[in-house]
């Protein structure tokens, strides 16, 4: 993108410098990117510091006042006289606090799922791209077949199977880990495909051939030489995947097969809130839904921007 000079002395260093300055330049000149980064940072820090930020402890039954149930936003509740900024839900829990804790859970599941998906996808992609032959065929065949199905369906199936394998009494406790597992497993294909193709390109380059010739072990070549050079697109996919994972988690929880009501995520909050849509307690559903929207939108916009800057060809 930047000026094309015939600076052959240090191609990599020059490339990296241009790369970085381009990203920075674009970030400073894309108001949407800056705004979404700001929103995302605020949401994330609120989630991380939820125990300190939240005005109430929504999951400590001793602090709840059932008489505060359905208290509207910014009004003194009937029971305790507390003012709940965003209102209270059916059990008198402060919506603002439940959102903070819910977002915390949603983000944790999302990040962990993307981490799982990325580790799995990058590993399999590296192996498939470097080994080639039947290893490649098998891995990519599986990827193809999985890609035939929408990831939400794959996640649901994995969730169902994992749930079937966990003893019924542990199901609620294990729900979060089962969620991470099923969303992560449903989303590795994109990583694998991209890493595989860039590995195949990189593996033919001189430095890899040289490493191979001087007899570096295969795992060293993969880890030390190939991995750092295929990570660029992975960052982009991870960002977009994070948005997808957050939405997937919310969807599963909304469908009633995700985080349990005792430990709600944003999706669970929306699911419970839906019951009160007709009775007029709009705040129970509106604020969690807005939060989810802001979260998903800011990550998505960031991912979109990052993709445009780093790798316009990645679609």
């Amino acid at each position, binding site marked *: 993108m930047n000026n094309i000079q015939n600076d052959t002395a240090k191609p990599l260093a020059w490339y990296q410098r241009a790369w970085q300055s381009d990203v920075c330049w674009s970030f400073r000149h894309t108001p949407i990117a800056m705004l979404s980064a700001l929103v995302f940072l605020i949401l994330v820090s609120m989630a991380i510091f939820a125990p300190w930020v939240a005005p109430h402890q929504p999951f400590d039954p001793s602090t709840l006042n059932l008489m505060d149930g359905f208290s509207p936003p910014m009004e003194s509740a009937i029971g305790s006289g507390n003012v709940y900024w965003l209102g209270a839900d059916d059990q008198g829990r402060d919506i603002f606090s439940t959102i903070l804790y819910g977002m915390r859970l949603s983000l944790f599941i999302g990040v962990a799922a993307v981490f799982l998906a990325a580790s799995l996808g990058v590993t399999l992609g590296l192996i498939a791209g470097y080994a080639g032959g039947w290893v490649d065929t098998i891995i990519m065949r599986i990827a193809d077949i999985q890609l*035939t199905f929408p990831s*939400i*369906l794959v996640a*649901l199936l994995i969730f169902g*199977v994992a749930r079937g*394998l966990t003893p019924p009494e542990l199901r609620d406790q294990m729900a979060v880990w089962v969620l991470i597992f099923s969303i992560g497993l449903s989303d590795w294909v994109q990583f694998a495909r991209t890493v595989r193709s860039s590995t195949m390109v990189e593996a033919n380059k001189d430095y890899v051939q040289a490493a191979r010739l001087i007899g570096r072990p295969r795992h060293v070549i993969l880890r030390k030489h190939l991995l750092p050079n295929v990570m660029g697109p992975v960052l982009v996919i991870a960002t977009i995947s994070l948005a997808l994972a957050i939405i997937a988690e919310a969807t599963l929880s*909304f*469908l009633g097969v995700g985080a349990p009501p005792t430990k709600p995520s944003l999706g669970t909050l929306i699911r419970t809130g839906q019951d009160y849509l007709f009775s007029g307690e709009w705040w129970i559903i509106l604020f969690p*839904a807005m939060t989810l929207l802001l979260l998903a*939108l800011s990550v998505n916009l960031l991912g979109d921007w990052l993709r445009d800057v780093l790798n316009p060809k990645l679609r």
Partner: protein
Amino acid sequence: MLAYIIRRVFQGAFVLLIVGFIAFCMFRFMGDPLESILGQEATALDRIELRERLGLNDPIVLQYGRFVGNAVQGEFGISYRNGVPVAELISQRLPATLELALVSAVLALVFGIVLGVYTAIKREGWLANSIMSLSLIGVSLPTFLIGILLIWIFAVELGWLPSFGRGDTGSLFGIQTSLATVSGIKSIILPAITLGLYQMTLIMRLVRAEMLEVLRADYIRFARARGLSERAINFSHALKNTLLPVITIIGLQLGQIIAFAIITETVFQWPGVGLLFINAVQFVDIPVMTTYLLLVGAMFVVLNLLVDLLYAVIDPRLRVAKR
């Protein structure tokens, strides 16, 4: 051409066999069929006898073969939850899902292509730009939120349309469908928009991206250099070349509608197979889950096959090469 079709059919059958094998593994190794059939008070002898009778002692390959054979004949076992043959459950629920999927697919296709072409041609226009920005929100918005939003506006606030269920069904060309009654049509509007919106956005963005790509092609430049009108260039040259590569992906997207119906059916309590499946996941009703998997797999494979055939018919390059 024939060789091409045959190869595609075999590929499809292979995918189905693998999906079938996953379904079989779930069916066979998860949950305990003995438990669900015999109940708590069964003796050890009963178990051994039933194992033998169900053929659970046979080699796995034989069991898989039997599973596939049964599936082909429409035998998918009995639901753990309500003791009804799964085939019966599915056949009751399938028409509702198909009808919803069909209406959504038509919505998604028509609006997706029209808006995609529009935003590509009027790349710099404010309306096209607003549509593109809105579409990004549309992609970010989880389907269930769209459904809830629509319910809130059109059912709760305005009270125009029902918020759940399928309405009455009537007979249209001998098929029982809710499209034949007023209440049915009213009921399907919101779910269909909810289900179709995401696919519509995707198709629109896809068509736009492809069309922009095509508009940069040499033959479009050459057409301009020959003094053809913008209309001829956009619609007779660019559009056809745009839609050709897009067909495959659009076909897959439409296939996903069936699966995404799970979410929409939950939001609107639409009595289709998706709702059935969600209940099955909640209660770990393995036979229903496996059957649903097989059903969706079969639909995807058939749809893929149709798309490939369509592609071969439209593209002259393929037509000649594969003849």
